[in-house]
């Protein structure tokens, strides 16, 4: 990836690093974080980019130099030494049949595909404790619903684009819903408060309703 990193302007305190995929963005953000450079403050990974904000008192020119020198480990995701969380799911979501139709799978095959791969938290952002999870293959890539729901309950497990995710609290939302979990995604009394922090690997486990 060296030399392949594009840096886009982002005001006078930050730069936006453009990458090829979510996996690359995750790996780049992890490598950048591991450097622990003073020139780097907040690091915000997302779908194809990493936003890097200069550290307090650091110049953007120093930030630029650090960003250009980041060498993410080969392979996108450093899977073996990151924590694995099992999330129990009742697969009774309102969009199961639609997802089956969109993917050409049966409902049982959708559930098998969802439980049969290891997901990893790529980035957060929608609400505290929400993690955008990337999977191992593209069998379950589906568009968002044409119309958002005004209320999706806490614990709803869904799909949108290349991601799976779990609503940490009730909110409006447009993801295709597969089921629900009673896992606590976000608890400010817990350390860490988020169950699904970036890098965490996730296995969904089917449980009876």
């Amino acid at each position, binding site marked *: 990836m060296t030399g392949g990193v594009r840096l886009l302007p982002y005001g006078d305190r930050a730069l936006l690093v453009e990458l090829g995929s979510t996996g690359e963005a995750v790996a780049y953000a992890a490598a950048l974080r591991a450097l622990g450079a003073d020139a780097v403050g907040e690091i915000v990974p997302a779908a194809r980019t990493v936003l890097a904000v200069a550290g307090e008192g650091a110049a953007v020119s120093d930030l630029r130099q650090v960003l250009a020198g980041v060498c993410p480990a080969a392979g996108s995701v450093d899977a073996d030494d990151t924590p694995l969380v099992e999330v129990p799911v009742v697969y009774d979501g309102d969009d199961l049949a639609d997802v089956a139709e969109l993917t050409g799978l049966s409902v049982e095959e959708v559930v098998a595909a969802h439980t049969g791969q290891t997901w990893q938290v790529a980035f957060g952002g*929608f609400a505290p404790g929400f993690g955008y999870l990337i999977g191992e293959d593209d069998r379950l890539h589906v568009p968002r619903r044409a119309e958002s729901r005004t209320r999706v309950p806490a614990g709803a497990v869904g799909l949108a684009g290349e991601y799976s995710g779990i609503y940490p609290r009730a909110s409006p939302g447009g993801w295709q819903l597969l089921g629900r979990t009673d896992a606590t995604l976000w608890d400010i009394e817990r350390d860490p408060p988020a169950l699904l922090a*970036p890098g965490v690997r996730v296995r969904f486990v089917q449980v009876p309703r």
Partner: protein
Amino acid sequence: MTRAMRVHATGPLALVQDLGRSGLSGVGVGRSGAADRGALRQANRALANPEHAAAVEATFGGLEVAVLDEGVWCCVTGAACAVQVDGRDVGSHAVFFAEPGARIVLGRPGAGLRSYLGVRGGVAPGEVLGSRSSDVLSGLGPPPLEVGDVLPVGVPADRFPHVDSVTAPDLAGEVVLRAVRGPRDGWVDDVDALVATPWSVTERSNRVGMRLGGHALRPARDQELPSEGAWRGAVQVPPSGEPVLFLADHPVTGGYPVVAVVVDADVDRAAQLRPGDPVRFRWVEAP
């Protein structure tokens, strides 16, 4: 003896704010903190507080608090407004002592939107994830102040205030915010319309962002942009074409293109704009 203040009136919105939370973007928690960081820092300097001490951010005046058992040193910064202690004018941007039982009342600012009531020792409700800031987007931190709330005041630092007053900002003049083009300037037809248009701040503005009216920037592509990190000062263009300037409680990531980013030093000034105020942008080079 308790060092504390009781809230008697809040005005439209009164929030506890410090300099916010850092390092939590990955779990969807934004920075938050004072919308006008410079004003908070100024209050803390005047009172010899650590710069991250929390104050009350009063939106458009109307805040009234009573000092409980122990007197406190205070200073109001940000949007200049009348400040009265038991009916006596002390003025904003001045350090004053309020005796036990005294009522402190903030009037509506003549210009600007947000005034900060700083207290020596800082207001000190419990921290959430390392900060006392109320984040109106995520709901983290102390809820908006309500009548009857008792706000604890922290332990003063060893140093003492050594100024009587600080400089009030001029918030009455025309506002031209400096902005750097990009990162997604190519996602609208004509990004120069951002600097050519006399914008006005709409009513649909809060600590998350300020929606601007006066023109609609036309999208240049009908693709969807994958979610990207967002930051204070980002000018995001949603499908309506009316830009939104992100302030303290902006979302951590967003799916609409950011076509320009206001330079950090000008974002505090932007946070003092009121609905109806005119505002312009001008381009500056990226550093």
